[in-house]
């Protein structure tokens, strides 16, 4: 029981200050969030467009396979000399340690899954629905935005959720290149053989990952059209639901 008492005391005594867990959680969330948002901004439009046009199947497979094969730790090591060089040359990056290499590694980790799920989600939209939408006069960007994208949204959001959880768990590695975050407790605890600190850090990372998962699940449930549940297959649409979008009632009717 002594260990758990120590652990409890650790949490009570170490919540405040620069090395306290409130600050560490914030640092952890900060780099994770920036990496996921950046990955979504790049991978989502690209994946959606390639999925829409049907081009780039080979590229997707290659990107994913390479992305999966690259360990984040390796990317971190590769990113470090690059970010140190960047810090010397680019005025708005003043430190090549810490945030920058961690961000690069997490961004590289997040890109492939967001990209593939978006591409696969758009490709996976029932071709008959796409055909029907074309028949109703939807083309190009509007077809993608109003038909394919909403239908692919569950798959896309699942990709973002899984990615975010993975990024939060991996942000721990940032401690190896001088970043803060919760990995600090694990790395520093290991260097000083402080088991309480190691376990506390591991628990915080695990808790943050679970919380991320829960939060994204909630968002998914909110954002995805209720019509995309299982009922879609079985329920005959009532007149109300048919007109709900209201854009082309005459087209639906005909």
């Amino acid at each position, binding site marked *: 029981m002594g260990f758990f008492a120590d652990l409890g005391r650790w949490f009570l005594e170490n919540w405040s200050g620069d090395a306290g867990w409130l600050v560490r959680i914030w640092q952890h969330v900060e780099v994770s969030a920036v990496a996921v948002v950046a990955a979504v901004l790049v991978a989502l439009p690209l994946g959606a467009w390639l999925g829409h046009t049907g081009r780039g199947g080979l590229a997707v497979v290659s990107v994913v396979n390479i992305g999966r094969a690259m360990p984040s730790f390796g990317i971190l090591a590769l990113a470090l000399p690059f970010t140190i060089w960047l810090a*010397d040359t680019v005025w708005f990056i003043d430190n*090549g340690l810490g945030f920058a290499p961690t961000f690069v590694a997490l961004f590289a980790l997040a890109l492939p899954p967001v990209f593939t799920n978006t591409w696969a989600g758009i490709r996976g939209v029932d071709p008959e629905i796409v055909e029907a939408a074309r028949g109703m006069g939807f083309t190009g960007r509007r077809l993608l935005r109003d038909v394919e994208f909403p239908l692919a949204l569950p798959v896309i959001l699942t990709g973002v959720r899984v990615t975010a959880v993975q990024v939060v768990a991996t942000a721990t590695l940032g401690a190896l290149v001088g970043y803060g975050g919760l990995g600090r407790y694990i*790395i520093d605890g290991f260097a*000083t053989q402080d088991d309480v600190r190691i376990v506390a850090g591991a628990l915080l990372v695990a808790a943050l990952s679970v919380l991320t998962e829960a939060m994204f699940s909630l968002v998914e449930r909110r954002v995805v059209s209720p019509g995309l549940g299982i009922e879609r297959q079985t329920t005959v649409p009532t007149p109300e639901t048919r007109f709900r979008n209201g854009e082309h009632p005459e087209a639906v009717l005909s």
Partner: protein
Amino acid sequence: MRINLRSRVVGAALIAMALVVGACGDDNGSGGDTKEGPTITIGSTNFGEQLILGEIFAQVLEANGYTVERQFNLGSREVVYPALTSGQIDLLAEYTGSLLTFKGGTPSTDSAQTAADLQAAIGPDGLTALAYSPAQDRNGFVVTGETAQALGLTALSDLAAHNGELTLGGPPECPDRPLCLLGLEEVYGIQFFGFIPLDVGGPLTVAALEGGEIDVALLFTSDGVIAAKGFVLLEDDRNLQPSENVVPVVRDDIVTAYGSQLTDLLDSVSAKITTAELSALNKRYGIDAVDADVLAGEWLAANGF
């Protein structure tokens, strides 16, 4: 894995050589005989010099017929020392002052006194500190040539004039260590702007110092990179760093099993390692990227083992 595989190849080559020598004539003496007794597991922590020293002791024992196993790249002293006392490793190249500090003692700048105190401190743990080597490897605080010139730094006491301005980089355990950040604060009255936890005197720390991410770095005084990169080692003008002679620490049961035949051999090796040679080996490891096992083999051959 790479080092392990290489070590095994070299080990196999040495055994093959030993067999050839043995086959050439039994009148050759004791050199290639296989010793009866327990396997000697040699440990090392996780920086270049430790790997080189571990290889030197491993290869000289193998060449003399001892059965050797390697457990290299273990973590800091907090990890390695328990491994030694519990018998997971049997031999480790240690540093007199740091290990004595770790055991709660107070090392001095007197090498012999520090070594004697060390033996008294680790004896109860079933360990023997063999004869210490003239080679020393202290914690050294290093700045770039430009920083030294710009701020007029030559000694550690000069740093106190820049309290709150400079960033220190070093191993994660540094803030808890009396010979690192704690000592700088207490003995020299230095207050850094911040501390960035990096690696143990390794490439990350060097890159951070070169790139200007940190202003002061903890490196080891025997590190060849200091001279090669034009870094300035700040003089320890208040003698914070004690004697840090390289010393093989061995479990008593191994010493008992093999007796003076083993300890004489290791003592003769330790006696030949000097600080200058250690720096040269470290430089070839860290800058020329020669593998530790190759360096150890060459050093042993050059010194007649």
